[in-house]
């Protein structure tokens, strides 16, 4: 699980993705550093408007005008690719990478599946776009993959249209399609948010199993810190376009150092005594076009001081545990916290 012992797959350095709007420049992603090792599962956590989805789209280079990547680099060390910077890759090159080396699972599978094409057509197309194989071989591969994500009687289901599937099944088809070409990296943008808890648990279970088996790295973008804590190896918490805390799940969850991470975990109902008011973060997420100076969290933070009017830099607080805060939470109320956390 350790980044240093495994070979690096993705290295993002001070990435900036901005949107020019009439109301001013919206800095959706503003100086994000992230690394990802082969086969690692990273949870990218943040509330709406924190820039977590734009991060995913930036890696896929799916940012449309008025958005653009204005700075930074996304180094991708894929198989057969040497030290490639995705920011400068040609659109032709990106087309070959997407779907074969890097795949994405979107939140709403009804939007990513074509409603007028049968599942087999769409899946075979995805295979043949990257490999010269016969229809028969491609079809068999599609069928096997559907079976692997837990779709019953895949042979028959191949001939169905997306609307004939339930929401959970549709998301499984989307996941199967993403895994068809054995990508090295999958970016999943809130894929279980619209699903029931029972279905969500099934899908989490399948995805993690598949990633472990095939050695695929996974970036799971979510707003649900409780969900990701049981899935990921490492976690990165985003707030207003910046990663404010990153580290191994057991470090970050057991002892969050950034006040925002601590606040986020405090507001999860199951982390609070029943019937008592929930601990809440005052105020609301700032508008990205009008960010407060310095640390964007400072106006909502009880630890903020004058120093916080400058932008805090990422500083290590433990092995692989980094935090972007001038006043990180130091002491851990060790015993009480561990009592509450149900492992």
């Amino acid at each position, binding site marked *: 699980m350790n980044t240093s012992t495994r070979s690096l797959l993705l290295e993002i350095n001070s990435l900036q993705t901005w949107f020019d709007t009439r109301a001013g420049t919206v800095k959706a992603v503003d100086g994000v550093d992230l690394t990802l090792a082969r086969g690692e599962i990273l949870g990218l956590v943040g509330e709406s408007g924190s820039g977590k989805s734009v991060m995913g789209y930036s890696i896929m280079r799916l940012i449309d005008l008025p958005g653009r990547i204005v700075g930074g680099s996304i180094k991708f060390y894929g198989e057969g690719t040497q030290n490639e910077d995705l920011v400068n890759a040609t659109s032709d090159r990106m087309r070959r990478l997407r779907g074969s080396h890097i795949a994405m699972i979107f939140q709403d599978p009804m939007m990513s599946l074509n409603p007028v094409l049968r599942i087999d057509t769409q899946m075979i197309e995805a295979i043949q776009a990257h490999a010269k194989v016969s229809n028969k071989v491609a079809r068999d591969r599609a069928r096997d993959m559907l079976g692997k994500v837990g779709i019953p009687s895949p042979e028959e289901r191949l001939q169905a249209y997306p609307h004939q599937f339930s929401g959970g099944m549709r998301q499984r088809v989307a996941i199967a399609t993403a895994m068809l070409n054995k990508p090295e990296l999958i970016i999943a943008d809130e894929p279980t948010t619209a699903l*029931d808890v029972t279905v*969500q648990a099934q899908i989490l279970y399948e995805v993690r199993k598949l990633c472990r088996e095939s050695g695929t790295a996974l970036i799971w973008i979510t707003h649900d810190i409780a969900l990701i804590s049981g899935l990921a190896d490492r976690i990165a918490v985003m707030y207003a376009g910046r990663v404010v805390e990153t580290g191994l799940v057991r470090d970050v969850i057991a002892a969050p150092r950034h006040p925002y991470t601590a606040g986020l975990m405090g507001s999860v109902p199951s982390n609070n005594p029943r019937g008592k008011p929930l601990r809440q973060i005052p105020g*609301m997420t700032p508008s990205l076009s009008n960010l407060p100076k310095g640390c964007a969290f400072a106006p909502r933070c009880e630890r903020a001081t004058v120093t916080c009017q400058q932008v805090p830099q990422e500083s290590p607080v433990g092995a692989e545990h980094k935090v972007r805060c001038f006043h990180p939470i130091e002491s851990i109320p060790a015993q009480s916290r561990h009592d509450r956390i149900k492992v």
Partner: protein
Amino acid sequence: MTASKSEALLELQGISKRFVQRADVAEKLTAKLTGNGKGADRVVHAVDHVDLAIRRGEVVGLVGESGCGKSTLGRVITGIHPSTEGVMRWKGKTESEMTGEERHAMRLAVQMIFQDPMSSLNPRKQVRDIIGEAPLAHGLIKKDDIDSYVEQVMQRVGLDPTYKMRYPHQFSGGQRARIGIARALAVQPEFLVCDESVAALDVSIQAQVINLFMKLCHELNLTFLFISHDLGVVQHISDRVVIMYLGRVVEVAPTEELFKAPNHPYTKGLLSEIPRIATQPREFVPIKGEIPSPLHPPSGCHFHPRCPYAMDRCKTERPVLKQIGTNRWSACHLNDADNKPAGNA
């Protein structure tokens, strides 16, 4: 179902709601010609014989997967859908026993807060009119008092009264949720049905809105039916939890007891799947399969195709909701003494 009848603010007895799609002429004709049975009307049993009693001041959580009929039940209670079958009593009286005036008072006293504030708030109306319209129409306030009344309600739900001339799109998601709550509160209700009211909100905003609900509950002595699929939220705010599966109530229990010792196999499965804060990758033990279509529900116990303890009897006989302890009900054949398998205490 709980305590004595006189205590119940709202009581449901055998409430059912069926949605029927009549077979059209072509379908009837083909059915006649080919001789297969597809010419029959299609019936969805959205709510199937639900008994429930809610006491004054109680917060009841109604939990289930999508398609289990929990929203439909909420809508039946608020009178948006008439029930197909069954009796609903408000303060001990059925609707037919009430005078017109009493019926009107009941409709005002039961209010609903919807899931998506963007689709339940009129985008062309100012907040002042959204909140002030209903109390004015029902004669609760005079026209001159609208402004002061709206300001008072807005303050109560934590909205800045200076925003009263704004339109819904000028607010954030959390504020819109508060407007929805303010609108429901404006007619001074006694009973609120909250249909997934916090589901679309971010965790930190969700915490603020949940705190608001709990504050209101204390201040105004409101009774809540809190419909949600999020067991974490329900566990936090409810006194009692009702679990629904495919139109039927499968378990009713006080919150603490339910989370400590769930009785019904479906409840057990649901509880094991709540995402909990964990410091290491946890194992998922998913319930197999998906919720079946309510068009063709399984025979007997609706849960039997997914149930790890299913017996032959479950396939044929519908389990009734039986009392299994103080204030606890469960609809499962396993609770019958002769069917108790080893290890299922």
